[in-house]
């Protein structure tokens, strides 16, 4: 798009279009970066980062690095960010990270160092004399295009590094497999053994209760209700329990029950009776708050 201008051998100013583009998208990039750091949920962080990366891709294209611009979108935004999202999903999408600092003085030190470092970098750049620039036009044209130019360099001057990068990638792939693969070291327990173990250890012997799916909601994170109206956590998948992602419907159910009672009381003209709420405060924080009132 703005590549035409960089055909000039040496220039002092970029085009106005690029300037406008820089200021607009640059702001977006910084906001994205801040979002990455400041968002509580990692999914949001990831999305912010993806935005910043796309902006950077545009900047690459604007500066004549067409190949990189495309690769940035395909590899970074397309592959790496997706990888991030996958892991975030694996680990827990909604688990919000508390931004409260636990290490003494860490935040101060971080701010100090970060600020100092930034100032130093900016001072360094300001110190450099960058009045004119060559532009990538000629370099791109020399081999008949940006991709050809890069290819020429990669396969001649940097071929050794390139080969090593190949080795690195393979190692990384194998490394990832080794790290995430769990070797089964002992024989898998048979059903009989599992049952015996369960009896021996005094765990729940009967099958776990089914979740409340279809009873009221159309999702597996809804626990079944016990006769007194409280939830049975056992009925929800342990992963969800771990993340604290149980949709507590007991209050709703209680309310409806209470309404039903009230209606029937009104109908039968009986004195209203307050049902007692019993919840496990620790397991379900939302209802615990309710109980505390």
């Amino acid at each position, binding site marked *: 798009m703005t590549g035409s201008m960089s055909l000039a051998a040496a220039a002092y100013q970029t085009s106005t279009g690029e300037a406008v583009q820089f200021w607009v998208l640059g702001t977006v990039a*910084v906001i994205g970066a801040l979002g990455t*750091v400041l968002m509580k949920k990692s999914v949001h*962080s990831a999305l912010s980062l993806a935005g910043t990366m796309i902006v950077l891709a545009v900047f690459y294209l604007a500066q004549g690095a067409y190949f990189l611009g495309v*690769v940035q979108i395909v590899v970074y935004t397309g592959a790496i960010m997706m990888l991030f999202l996958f892991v975030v999903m694996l680990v827990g999408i909604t*688990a919000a*990270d508390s931004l409260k600092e636990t290490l003494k003085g860490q935040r101060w030190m971080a701010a100090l160092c970060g600020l100092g470092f930034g100032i130093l970098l900016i001072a360094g750049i300001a110190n450099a004399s960058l009045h004119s620039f060559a532009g990538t036009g000629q370099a791109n044209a020399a081999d008949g295009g940006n991709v050809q130019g890069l290819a020429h360099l990669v396969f001649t001057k940097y071929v050794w590094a390139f080969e090593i990068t190949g080795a*690195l990638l393979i190692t990384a792939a194998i490394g990832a497999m080794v790290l995430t693969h769990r070797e089964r070291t002992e024989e898998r327990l048979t059903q009989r053994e599992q049952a015996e173990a369960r009896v021996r250890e005094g765990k729940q012997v009967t099958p776990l209760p089914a979740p409340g799916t279809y009873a009221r909601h159309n999702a597996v994170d809804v626990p079944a209700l016990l006769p007194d109206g409280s939830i049975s956590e056992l009925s929800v998948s342990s992963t969800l329990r*771990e993340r604290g992602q149980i949709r507590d419907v007991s209050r709703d159910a209680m309310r409806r029950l209470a309404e039903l009672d009230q209606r029937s009381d009104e109908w039968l003209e009986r004195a209203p009776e307050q049902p007692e709420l019993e919840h496990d405060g620790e397991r379900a924080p939302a209802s615990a708050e309710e109980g505390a009132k």
Partner: protein
Amino acid sequence: MNPANYLYLAALLFTIGAAGVLIRRNAIVVFMCVELMLNACNLAFVTFSRLHGNLDGQVIAFFTMVVAAAEVVVGLAIIVSIYRTRHSASVDDANLMKL
């Protein structure tokens, strides 16, 4: 506009990324911040390439991307395996290194 502005932007992004690494505890977010820093560097490289009028900077940026990809693969694998054993993705929980 002087292309050096890209460098300022890169410096800014790098610093933000660095601060994120220091502040955030979620290992995944820390990783993202590292990626942000790497991207800032890449932007600087591409800008330098433009300033000097040769493609070496872009080649380096290209290599950075490749290495970053490799790093992410291994890093995320580590995070997953830590999460499996500790049920936490917080970097503060992995502090066995002290005496």
